[in-house]
């Protein structure tokens, strides 16, 4: 069992949970994920790591309540325990393996969308701690849905916020902000890292392709075991099939078949909505 040390509501339906998991905390690196199972009946849900503290032995995850399992998870409180917390899984971000000079000399642009802002944070933090200067764009529908802006501003060289309705920062999509930075502010980047909803990552890669800006994306494919056994997470990258759990989760965004990836993500949507109904159903029998 893994204890919830701290629970924070970040925005509507978005929670931050700090979990006591010393072995995971000790091995975690930016870019990796965990598999969480709430209880005996729960699904195995892959979630990207939002932070980790080796000394305290804790790992932070950020969850948006979408399906039955994420709702159950967010219904728990501090002091409660979850059944399973396995990880860190997947490969760490590429820059973790690079030389200190290379890391320092490269100019990174991170593009974070919605709940995907959380896993961007440990990457930017790692780069900041290793002397790199990083620009970050955080995108959200509206200002109340923004998360991690304070934390990010401490580790990013420049933080730009874009909201669809203009309620905070730049008005428009993150893709418009990328264009704005490159074309109007004369920014130059060596690499872009985009993490967020599949549709956002698709359009970010379409935009960065215009500038021949290499772009890494982190795919949140469906998974069952997350250790390379089930093959549910297979994606087409450059015409070849890869398993997100053992070959990813980060891939060259310009090579990813996003349309297929989005379609595959919807594989169990109908069953999931039934499960969701089941949990939402309030008994009026008495």
């Amino acid at each position, binding site marked *: 069992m893994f204890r919830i040390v701290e629970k924070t509501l970040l925005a509507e339906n978005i929670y931050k949970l700090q979990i006591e998991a010393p072995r995971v905390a000790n091995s975690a690196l930016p870019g990796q994920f965990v598999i969480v199972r709430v209880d005996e*009946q729960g699904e195995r849900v892959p979630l990207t790591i939002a932070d980790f503290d080796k000394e305290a032995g804790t790992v932070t995850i950020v969850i948006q309540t979408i399906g039955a399992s994420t709702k159950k998870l967010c219904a728990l409180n501090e002091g409660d325990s979850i059944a399973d917390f396995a990880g860190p899984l997947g490969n760490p971000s590429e820059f973790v393996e690079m030389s200190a000079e290379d890391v320092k000399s490269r100019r990174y642009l991170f593009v974070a969308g919605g709940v995907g802002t959380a896993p961007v944070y440990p990457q930017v933090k790692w780069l900041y701690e290793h002397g790199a200067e990083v620009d970050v764009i955080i995108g959200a529908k509206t200002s109340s849905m923004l998360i991690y802006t304070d934390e990010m501003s401490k580790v990013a060289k420049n933080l730009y916020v874009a909201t669809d309705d203009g309620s905070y920062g730049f008005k428009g999509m993150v893709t418009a902000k990328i264009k704005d930075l490159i074309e109007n502010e004369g920014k130059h980047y060596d690499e872009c890292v985009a993490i967020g909803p599949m549709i956002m990552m698709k359009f970010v890669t379409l935009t960065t392709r215009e500038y021949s800006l290499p772009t890494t994306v982190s795919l949140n494919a469906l998974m069952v075991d997350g250790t390379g056994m089930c093959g549910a997470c297979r994606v087409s990258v450059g015409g070849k099939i890869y398993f997100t759990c053992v070959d990813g989760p980060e891939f060259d965004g310009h090579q990813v078949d996003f349309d297929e990836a989005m379609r595959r993500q919807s594989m169990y949507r109908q069953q999931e909505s039934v499960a969701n109904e089941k949990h939402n159903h309030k008994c009026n029998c008495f």
Partner: protein
Amino acid sequence: MANKIPRVSVREQDAQMRATNFEEVCYGYNSEEAQLEASRCLNCKNPRCVAACPVNINIPAFISHVMSGDFKAASDVISEDSSLPSICGRVCPQETQCEGSCILGIKGEPVAIGKLERFVGDWSLENDAKSVAKAAANGHKIAVIGSGPAGLACASDLAKMGYEVTVFEALHKLGGVLVYGIPEFRLPKEKIVAREIETLRKLGVKFETDVVVGRTITIDSLMDDEGFDAVFIGSGAGLPRFMGIEGENLNGVVSANEFLTRANLMRAYDAEYDTPIYVGKRVVVVGGGNVAMDAVRTAKRLGADATIVYRRSEAELPARREEVHHAKEEGIEFRMLTNPTAVLGDDKGWVTGLNCVEMELGEPDDSGRRSPVEKAGSDFVVECDVVIMALGTSPNPLLKRTTAGLETNRRGCIVADEWGATSREGVFAGGDAVTGAATVILAMGAGRKAAKAIDNYVKNK
């Protein structure tokens, strides 16, 4: 003198009934039936069955104890060579091993060795009669990676020798393929697998779930930081293979591993569980092994019309004979000499059918089986909404990538000698991680051999 009666048939759940539930198919022998069947054994001087058993159980000896009604003595005989008789009695391919070499099988039917082993195993679980005797603690720690058949067998033997054994399991439940792969109707999880594992706990074996060795911890950290004297890798088969044909990423194409894991480990068939599973109306399973049979029979139980598509003929089906027989009884359709060439889908990307060609058998290949050759112009479509690929696996690269100096072969399997020693000192391996996908009993045999080798290694260090 042996009793010249026909083989005692075993009671089974009615085929029509069982095709709609997940209860065990075979009920097994009761004690009268077991004693009667045991009386058929000739008690050969040179028992060919013992040589044909991958762990060389003294079969005539345990059978003669069954005949005389001394089930505890029978259990003790089996325990000398196998720690998981209730499991092996259910899933071993007896027709190619012990029973396949039984003298009685030449003219008639062999002794039902598998069913007798199962009876003894179940009897000892029910009567808590399993021997948990062990040597005094020797102060050495051994780590076992994976709680499948190889790991359990290795852990069990080492614990009996007095080692302090910890088994690390990546998933949330113990048992490896015994829980995620083999379905409930063939191997009950709580009644059998969990209880066999409980016996290991009684021997003092410790278990840690949710630990992915190579990620959560490494083999080096186990040996350098956690003080383990040796490590046994029993991490299993690995990544599911696909055919590489068009349309394989359509919605509705899944690996047998995914389908079975959802159903078995994640209990998708049980309404209490949140796991989704998609079966549609018509399921086609590609492949002819035990995993293919498990997948197709699971699909049937979940309400689909279910078909096996296999590129060779029925004689070459690698599955256990009993599974093929049971599948047919349950109404599974078998399309032999049929090879898929493309998965067809609708404009939304969901499967609508499988394009196939007819095959005919040509010359024997390296495995001695006649290799199938495509009949020109024989294309046809099998309509379906789910395609399950049961084509075997390729090794998981994780341990290789995270363990310096651990050699693998051209296919990616861990290189180990006859006793399980790998290229890394103090690191042993066995089971599917070494051989590629094989059987429960071969994995168990490899785990037991490695236990002996680990004992030698630690004593001579």
